């Protein structure tokens, strides 16, 4: 049963469900922000959302277009300076989950948001690191959400902007004061988690209607599947309607003429 929904909605709802109530989450803009706010509006009313613009415990009614929309500050418990945000709240160890998007991710969950190609002769120049490099190491753990494609999920990222488990899966071993790193990756096809030994990403759950072949086809390395491969639970009516309302509100606000 369950209503009709798109792959994108499946991804967002699954990502939202990953966030437990009461968690303190440092939210990246875009997909993570959509998922985190859906969580807040459904099963996790007490999730604490932090954006790098300095807005602590914010409850935006519409999704911010930028990381520093007025909506974030207006609905925040308080807003601190950006150096304080990165020093006291992130580096100070107050964040349970860092929720990130990315342009590229590899099998060891390293993220690339810097460029495609060679650094000095880029084929495509991407925005760069932003908050991610330190979110990924200072947060207790990291959730990643992105659309599944061979272009995005590659064997080795062109550039490690933000470390997952490094080129060999061992980048966090023995490093003091570092978080657990990526603990799940949610795409529009499946959920992946790092293998306990090798840290290589493994599919642990397929979204309903998605086949192993679909995932293999859309992944840039020889993706492995967990022995106990699960089927991701479908979104429920409530989640879908709240998500759709949120997106409609957001669309209206962002396309409307500003006063």
């Amino acid at each position, binding site marked *: 049963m369950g209503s009709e929904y798109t792959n994108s909605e499946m991804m967002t709802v699954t990502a939202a469900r990953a966030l437990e109530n009461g968690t303190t989450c440092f939210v990246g*803009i*875009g997909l993570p922000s959509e998922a985190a706010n859906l969580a807040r509006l459904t099963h996790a009313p007490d999730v604490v959302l932090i954006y*790098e*613009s*300095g*807005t602590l415990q914010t409850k935006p009614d519409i999704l*911010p*277009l*930028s*990381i*520093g*929309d*007025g909506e*974030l*500050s207006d609905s925040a418990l308080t*807003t601190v*300076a*950006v*150096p304080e*945000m*990165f*020093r006291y709240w*992130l*580096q100070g160890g107050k964040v349970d989950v860092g929720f990130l998007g990315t342009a590229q991710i590899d099998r060891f969950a*390293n993220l690339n948001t*810097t460029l495609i190609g060679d*650094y000095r002769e*880029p084929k495509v*120049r*991407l*925005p*760069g*690191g*932003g*908050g*991610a*490099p*330190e979110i*990924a*190491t*200072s947060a207790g753990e990291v959730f990643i959400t992105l659309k599944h494609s061979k272009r995005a999920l590659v064997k080795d990222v062109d*550039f*490690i*902007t*933000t*470390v997952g488990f*490094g080129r060999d899966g061992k*980048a*966090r071993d023995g*490093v*003091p*004061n*570092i978080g657990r790193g990526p603990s799940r990756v949610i795409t529009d096809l499946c959920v992946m988690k790092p293998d306990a030994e090798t840290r290589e990403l493994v599919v642990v759950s397929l979204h309903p209607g998605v086949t192993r072949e679909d995932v293999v086809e859309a992944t840039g390395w020889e993706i492995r599947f967990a022995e106990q491969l699960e089927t991701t639970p479908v979104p429920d009516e409530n989640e879908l309607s709240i998500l759709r309302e949120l997106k409609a509100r957001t669309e209206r*606000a*962002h*396309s*409307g*003429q*500003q*006063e």
Partner: protein
Amino acid sequence: MAEFLSLHDAVARYVQDGSTVAMEGFTHLIPFAAGHEVIRQKKRDLTLIRMTPDLIYDQLIGAGCARKVIFSWGGNPGVGSLHRLRDAVEKGWPHPVEILEHSHAAMACAFEAGAAGLPMAVLRGYIGSELPSVNEQIRFIECPFTGERLAAVPSVRPDTSIVHAQKADRHGNVLIEGIVGVQKEAVLAASQSIITVEEIVDELDTHPNACVLPSWAIDAIAVAEKGALPSYTHGYYERDNRFYKKWDEIARDRDTFTQWLNDHVLNSAESAGGQV
């Protein structure tokens, strides 16, 4: 002691060809009016520092003002690329621009250290990232107490910082409210500073721990009504998200951009508002 100047005079006096300039404002309070004045005055060879270059640096780069950009996230927030930045970096138009990139945490700490008068910032940063391999200004030091390896970056000490704020009182004390970003740090870290404000008031009328920059920590104040548009000023006007989306089209093409620049900046008189 802050001096009240026209925006033209403030930029003419405090921004020189070859200067290192930080125009800050974290999404909020981006000093577009001042940026446009820099473009109109055809300043050249600037080293531009900003955590998020945003449209303001896209415009300055496209207009040929920049020699180097130091940043930590160079996109059009929620929209996509900064096409002028990319065109300059990837194809050298209108001329090549050098980039030096950091993470937000490092740049925020570098501004903090600049305000604190220190030569460097120390943070637990860049672990496992390949950014240190392309930015030789990222180094590592050892904590003398624990032996932990920590990142160090040079502090940001611009020649001139430019920020936008809500208001100044008649003595030249300035209030910044809402998302305050690294604006206070940018002003205090710089040798010289210009602050554009929405208005000048008799009393700032604020709370005991407000973010107030005293007159004696500022060089010039210029009134620039709507001076942050298309970004926003908390308490005054909202972000023009439509323009941010529209910028994608304008900036994608050199001719469209040039036309826009001519129409809205170069051939536009200094205006109270940030021309968008």
